[in-house]
């Protein structure tokens, strides 16, 4: 089918207006390559990596074309054959995919190293010495908005098991994520607090691994499968009713483990088991309905929300975060124009495709600024960082960027009377 309904949904098509930069175009190219009409040359590879993987084309497609699967298979095939990556991409990938994310401990070590770097004089030195200028500009910019990393993850800090407050509704396993756990440990802790407050018992199995999203989206499918198996084992052992995620990107791949392992006889059932139980934190909070209405503690504020593409297009959750935010009293929720459109972060996209990502971000910030919101809220660490970068580059200095969990936590847990933890 080539109806073209997916074209208007695609950010890269919108940015360029070129058919090859559209889902329909990319599918035609994949087909041309498999049909032998075209060689899988470097320009083909480049085109495949231009795709953000935001999956906005999927809900737009009435014919139910599984674009996400097509692009992942294509990228896997490319990974197997290519030697044409720009020189720094390949080693970076090696480090990121093989060395780092599969091993939580190493991620934590890296966190520690970053912490050291950030807290010692090194960061200052690096910034003032101009070392940063040697890095590609966009990496330097990114460095500035990175939060302080931590060498201790959530389990090290607060332990694995957290009983529900009041009547227990269900037991949830928390997916802690790697980026989330390293850069946003506090957000993870607050996620647990929101959940227990809402009536859920929370277990955080320490044997869980990285979700494998970056691997799967970049064609390192075997690695993704390995990680998936480890996660299935970890959560099955924990015996949970739900698996909750607070990062759209991770949640989405978890819901697709069934597809990732559909050819794996031994793990197929477990994959379906896990995929069915995955739910985003906002959805679970809405479902429990137990949280007291939140209250903005400042003067009346204005808030807005940037969708996480994978949360919206793959997990198909767009309403829950908005509903939660609309319930915050004292805060006016304004919908941002094209909040559903990718911010350009998309995994490693802003590192590998800086120009397109920068264009997308610029447009995004025009719309963000137009809301005049005090808080711009997101549901995914990648988007969070990208939006911070956006505000730093194009903002008016008024806007704060926060993970929706942090925002709600401040206003829910600390304001709800039974915890008695009034904010000072």
């Amino acid at each position, binding site marked *: 089918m080539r*109806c073209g309904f997916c074209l208007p949904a695609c950010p890269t098509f919108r940015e360029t*207006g070129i058919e090859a930069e559209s889902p329909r175009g990319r599918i*035609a*190219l994949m087909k041309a390559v498999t049909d032998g009409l075209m060689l899988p040359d470097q320009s*083909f590879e480049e085109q495949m990596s231009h795709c953000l993987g935001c999956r906005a084309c999927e809900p737009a497609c*009435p*014919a139910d074309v599984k674009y996400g699967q097509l692009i992942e298979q294509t990228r896997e095939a490319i990974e197997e054959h290519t030697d044409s990556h720009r020189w720094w991409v390949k080693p970076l990938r090696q480090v990121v995919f093989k060395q780092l994310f599969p091993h939580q401990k190493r991620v934590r070590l890296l966190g520690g190293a970053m912490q050291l770097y950030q807290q010692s004089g090194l960061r200052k030195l690096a910034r003032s010495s101009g070392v940063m200028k040697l890095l590609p500009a966009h990496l330097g910019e990114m460095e500035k908005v990175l939060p302080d990393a931590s060498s201790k993850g959530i389990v090290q800090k607060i332990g694995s098991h957290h009983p529900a407050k009041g009547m227990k509704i269900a037991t949830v396993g928390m997916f802690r994520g790697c980026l989330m756990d390293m850069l946003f440990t506090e957000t993870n802790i607050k996620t647990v607090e929101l959940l227990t407050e809402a009536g859920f018992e929370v277990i955080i199995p320490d044997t869980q691994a990285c979700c494998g999203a970056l691997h799967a989206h970049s064609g390192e499918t075997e690695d993704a499968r390995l990680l998936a198996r480890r996660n299935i084992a970890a959560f099955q052992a924990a015996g949970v009713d739900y698996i909750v995620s607070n990062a759209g990107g991770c949640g989405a791949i978890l819901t697709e483990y069934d597809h990732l392992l559909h050819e794996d006889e031994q793990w197929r059932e477990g994959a379906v088991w896990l995929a069915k139980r995955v739910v985003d934190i906002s959805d679970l909070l809405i479902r429990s309905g137990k949280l007291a209405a939140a209250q903005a503690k400042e003067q009346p504020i204005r808030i807005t929300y940037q969708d996480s593409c994978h949360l919206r297009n793959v997990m198909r959750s767009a309403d829950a975060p908005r509903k939660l935010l609309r319930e915050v009293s004292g805060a006016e929720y304004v919908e941002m124009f094209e909040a559903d459109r990718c911010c350009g972060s998309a995994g490693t996209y802003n590192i590998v495709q800086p120009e397109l990502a920068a264009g997308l971000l610029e447009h995004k910030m025009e719309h963000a600024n137009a809301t005049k919101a005090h808080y711009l809220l997101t549901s995914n660490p990648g988007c969070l960082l990208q939006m911070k970068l956006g505000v730093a580059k194009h903002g008016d200095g008024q806007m704060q960027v926060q993970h929706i969990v942090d925002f709600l936590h401040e206003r829910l847990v600390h304001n709800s009377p039974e915890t008695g933890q009034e904010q000072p």
Partner: protein
Amino acid sequence: MLQQTIRQQLLAIVGSDFYKDDPQSLVTHSYDGTPMLQALPDGVIYPANTEQVSAIMKVLNTHRIPVIGRGSGTNLCGGTVPVEGGIVMVMHRMNRILEVDLENLVAVVQPGMITKAFIAHVESLGLFYPPDPSSMAISTIGGNIAECSGGLRGLKYGTTKDYVLGLEAVLASGEIIRTGGKLMKDVAGYDLTKLLVGSEGTLAIITEATLKLVPPPKFKKTMLAMYKDLYGAARTVSKIIENRIIPSTLEFLDNATVRVVDDFAKLGLPLDMEAILLIEQDGEPEMVERDIARIEEICRSEQAHSVSVAESAEEALKLLTARRSAFTALARLRPTTILEDATVPRSKIAEMVLEINRIAQKHQVTICTFGHAGDGNLHPTATTDARDQEEIHRVEAAFEEIFEAAIRLGGTITGEHGVGLVKSPYLEWKVGPAGIEVMKAVKQAFDPHQLLNPGKIFAKQSRKRVVLQHG
């Protein structure tokens, strides 16, 4: 690939970013919305303005190179497949609204403007542009004009041709012509505007259009009527018109279509109905209420199983949007979806639906039918698999009979999608040999060297569909 010297001339006109002949560009301009057709062009060009179009045409004319105008490539008749090679001219960069004249109620737009964006802009000014092909989210005004597209509102408001007042176009020679204008009345000579509307890129490249706008209806109501009996639904359509009620929308969906549409749009429609009618009326509130009540009576007298009126504007919009997705949603059933647009006088709807079902059964193929029943424009849609050659032949035989039946009932082979490549073998059935001769003479006058979209509309012989690739 073109000769270096010709490439250089084209590059000099548009700049290196806007002429492309790399494999990617060629592949992605080798198809359109039509299944099973593909042919590579020699190059793709993106002009920025009328002067560039004219300069490009002069180069191509000198070297006798074909040119295929292209909007978003959503047409379903093979209209933009470059079957004879040549240059695909993509109009996307010419996408501005040049003027909205609130005194004359007209808009002047460039052809690459996306239809939906245009409609949204016009509506933000409190005006209304009725033509609304289901593909409007991506199709262009230029493509709509070249195909004379219709939509869900065609019954009451007419189709694209009723809203084009004037055009600017570039001939094969590179000369620029202007037809019509902001005026409502104009009988100076032949009506070249109307001739270009629906010309499918074979007479000239359209570079600007003056479009009529109308005041929006004050009020509207949407209803659904469901039938256990197909014939009852079809009879209802004829009877509404007989009763001199012209709804703004009167759409028909058969059981198979209802099922897939519901699966896509999650509307909770009952799946055991043989047919559903989606009816909308707009206008002054009293008139709308009266018409809807009267239509409800007619539905019931034709044994409608249930009749319900949409509670809210959102619900109505959801229904209409679901209907607009019908065609693509059908693609969920089988790998290849072939949709046609046989059209009959609206009193013959019931007969035509029965004919389609009979023919499908005879050839053992699955054909779902939906369409703009109110204007007689049906979309019999075959769900099939292009890898099965034998089945595809049966599908082709079935469609041939369907076109025949349409003409026998006083109808036509295409109501809105155009002739293009796919229906060129059948055009003569509709217009007769003398009709074809006159059309060819017109073509000769505009495009003596047959450079504009060659291979379209006029069949070389009574050729069948070319199967190059499965869709």
